[in-house]
């Protein structure tokens, strides 16, 4: 124990949750190495760390999805060994995972109570069930129609429903795995409101997140993990942002500017470059319920970052640029020539490429080989009747496996068997093979390990240097800062501003992202969505 920890440990009562020396071994990997962690009653405890730090593993162990190789978990002083989600819930530990586990076709009330419906003589007592669901929602301070099916609700509300479900089973401990990743600022506000309320009710909350500012907004204490080991535990007040970031990254950061982020340089976004037409330009590109009209341009050899929280409209904007969705307003030009609206094929033909955010569900064909995944886009552009000769396919596959250092047993290995980082590289290779003018990358480094991430970042820099126009979407602000020449910051589905050159740093982006607190309540939002 570090002195800081000892100092900050609330000694008055035994901790609500006390995790001691937990080890988790996967074949060949030690995901957690003697990690300890404690949670007090009425506390919000942030669990932080970069990808691969072991946060998810720890969450899974708490949730009962996995049993640790070694170590103990005590709940209120007695040891528990949760063997399943239900088992953990029976102990009062409820977990809400990032991928929201709700049944889309069932109503809100049914989802909240699924599997533990109040019954009498075997029959579900509907009034009782609805009352319980309403009560669970009330604890979060939200009001939604209990009879709506979940698939009709926006993701943020689904998230809250999932939390309500977790609360419904007399939870004493609530574990939230990146609950805000798909929420916008106002929704995050509502969630925090709800979490504070729960904290007052004496719940212990484990809050896993990437968002530093959110941690400072709500957490009482912070535990940082790195590479499967615990770095330390601090009270929020006692830990500066710089210290937190260096704890997470293991590097000393000299330049996390904390200066006044006011008056970022406002570059005219829509203005075309002086000489040649930009590689990609969009004017007033917008789509109802998706993103307000935005203008932007990227030139060859330039990287434009689209910064903003998840749900800020960055993915939606990327899809509009790529023609995956049709805009209601505006148009897209590639090298000065306008693209037909809403046609992926036209965009590809003009030299636009996009790696989607969710590479498993939208990008890769998991049961297909590395080679097939790599040639797919090129083949699609050539049309089905002009197949790439097998030798050419092999050459391409071999080339990119080597060039991108894809760690695969061979070009015929199914992509599903590769690690996340290598899958991402395959996806990149697919688009590099078509030699695009513009490459749109939506979260290219999400969920991949540090090493692969560094490689992909190097690759992006390299592509930029070789004259490709790059549009980069990333939740990692440092990535935007490091890789991009300019950044367009999105907030609440609107362009909040742009940053370039010296002005582009993390704090400036953050300031812009967090600039205007939204006031509309979520209940109102729902109604708005409905009317739209």
């Amino acid at each position, binding site marked *: 124990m570090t002195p800081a920890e000892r100092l900050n440990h609330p000694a008055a009562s035994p901790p609500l949750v006390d995790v001691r020396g937990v080890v988790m071994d996967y074949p060949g990997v030690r995901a957690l190495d003697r990690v300890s962690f404690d949670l007090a009653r009425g506390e919000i405890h942030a669990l932080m760390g970069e990808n691969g730090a072991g946060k998810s593993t720890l969450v899974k162990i708490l949730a009962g999805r996995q049993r640790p190789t070694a170590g103990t978990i005590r709940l209120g002083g007695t040891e528990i060994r949760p063997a399943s989600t239900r088992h953990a819930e029976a102990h009062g530990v409820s977990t809400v995972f990032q991928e929201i586990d709700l*049944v889309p*076709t*069932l109503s809100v009330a049914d989802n909240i109570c699924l599997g533990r*419906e109040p019954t009498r003589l075997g029959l579900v007592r509907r009034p009782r069930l609805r009352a319980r669901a309403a009560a669970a929602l009330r604890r979060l301070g939200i009001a939604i129609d209990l*009879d709506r099916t979940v698939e009709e609700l926006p993701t943020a509300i689904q998230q809250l429903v999932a939390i309500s479900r977790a609360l419904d089973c007399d939870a004493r401990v609530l574990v939230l795995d990146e609950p805000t990743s798909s929420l916008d600022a106002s929704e995050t506000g509502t969630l925090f409101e709800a979490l504070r309320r729960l904290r007052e009710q004496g719940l212990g909350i484990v809050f896993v997140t990437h968002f530093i500012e959110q941690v400072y907004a709500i957490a009482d204490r912070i535990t940082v993990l790195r590479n499967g080991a615990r770095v330390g535990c601090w009270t929020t007040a006692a830990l500066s942002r710089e210290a937190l970031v260096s704890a997470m990254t293991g590097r000393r950061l000299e330049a996390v500017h904390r200066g006044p982020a006011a008056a970022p340089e406002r570059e005219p976004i829509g203005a075309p470059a002086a000489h040649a037409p930009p590689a990609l330009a969009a004017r007033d590109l917008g789509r109802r319920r998706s993103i307000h009209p935005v203008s932007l341009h990227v030139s060859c050899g330039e990287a434009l970052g689209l910064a903003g929280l998840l749900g800020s409209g960055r993915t939606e904007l990327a899809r509009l640029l790529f023609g995956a969705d049709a805009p209601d307003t505006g148009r897209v030009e590639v090298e000065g020539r306008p693209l037909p609206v809403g046609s992926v094929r036209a965009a590809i033909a003009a030299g636009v490429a996009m790696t989607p955010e969710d590479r498993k569900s939208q990008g890769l064909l998991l049961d297909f080989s590395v080679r097939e995944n790599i040639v797919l886009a090129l083949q699609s552009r050539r049309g089905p009747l002009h197949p790439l000769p097998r030798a050419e396919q092999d050459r391409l596959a071999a080339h990119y496996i080597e060039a991108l250092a894809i760690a695969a047993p061979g070009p015929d290995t199914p992509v599903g068997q590769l690690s996340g980082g290598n899958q991402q590289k395959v996806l990149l290779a697919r688009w590099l093979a078509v030699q695009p003018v513009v490459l749109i990358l939506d979260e290219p480094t999400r969920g991949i390990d540090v090493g692969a991430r560094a490689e992909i970042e190097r690759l992006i820099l390299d592509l930029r240097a070789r004259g490709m126009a790059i549009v980069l979407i990333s939740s990692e602000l440092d990535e935007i800062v490091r890789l991009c020449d300019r950044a367009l910051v999105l907030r609440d589905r609107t362009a909040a501003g742009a940053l370039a050159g010296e002005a582009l740093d993390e704090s400036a982006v953050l300031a812009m992202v967090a600039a205007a607190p939204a006031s509309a309540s979520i209940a109102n939002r729902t109604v708005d969505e409905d009317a739209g």
Partner: protein
Amino acid sequence: MRALLASRNLPSLAAAAILAVLVVAGSVRFEHFASVGNLSNLLGDYAFVAIAAVGATFVILAGGIDLSVGSMVAFTAMLAAWLVDRGWHPLATVPVCLAIGAALGAAMGGLIHAFALPAFIVTLAGMFALRAATFLLHDQPLGIVHPFLSWMSRDAAVPLGGAALPARAVLMLAVVALGAIVAGRTRFGRRVYALGGSPRSAEAMGVSVGTTTVAVYALAGACAALAGVVFASAKRAGDPTALVGLELTVIAAVVIGGTLLSGGVGSVGGTLLGVLILGVIRLLIDFQGNLNAAWTSVATGVLLLAFAGLQRALAGLGGWADRGTGGAARIEPRLPR
């Protein structure tokens, strides 16, 4: 009221409306169409179909499909007839048939879950195997004579405004009501909906996928077995050639009743509507009295198509607008496994 009008109920509401239109049109068009006698005939004649369809509804709600229904009904009907022929009391055959039907259903559900096989294939195999088993039991129609059965058909009927509602119709209504309660008001029912809505989420939310799958197919087997007993008692015979293709009728009834083949959405009550719609269409064809077989097939097909189109339009014309402009083609949900 709002809940009733929710979009997921629309197909069932459309089914109810179409049933009403068919009945009204038939009454206007044909003498003697709107009669209590026709109603009780309809309920009686389709009793076994509806009972089997209740089971099939659960399977489809859970995202599966059961092609073995026709063979299962024929098999259990033959089993009941065979037992009665050997001196059993007809009522005594009921538990035996139900148990065997449930066990066979559970076996299919078990195979589907344990080996991650497509339900289509497993129940197709069940369809073949049970048909053969029926022939092995008795290779030609087997008539049965039992005073109880005579009593059932002559006297065990509920008077209903000048006509008599046969006992099997009452049984069918009871099974539908029970099915509706199980689907809507029990934990098991909620699990079935959850499984069909999203197997992954359901599992994550603590629904035991294996147990539920097995239970659903067992329930379908039991329903088909009950339908078989009802069939045997109404016909006073078992017939190894009977009911080939019943599975398609049953699936059509379930779908017309508003249950989505992709699972998770629908209702048992809707299924009864679906059965009645098929019955009324048949009745209209009989009253019309001049369609030959070829035109009957064509007419049935066209009506099915109209129905599917209507439901599709109701379920997502808004979606169509999106699809029209959106580049990302959305392929229909996969065939239920």
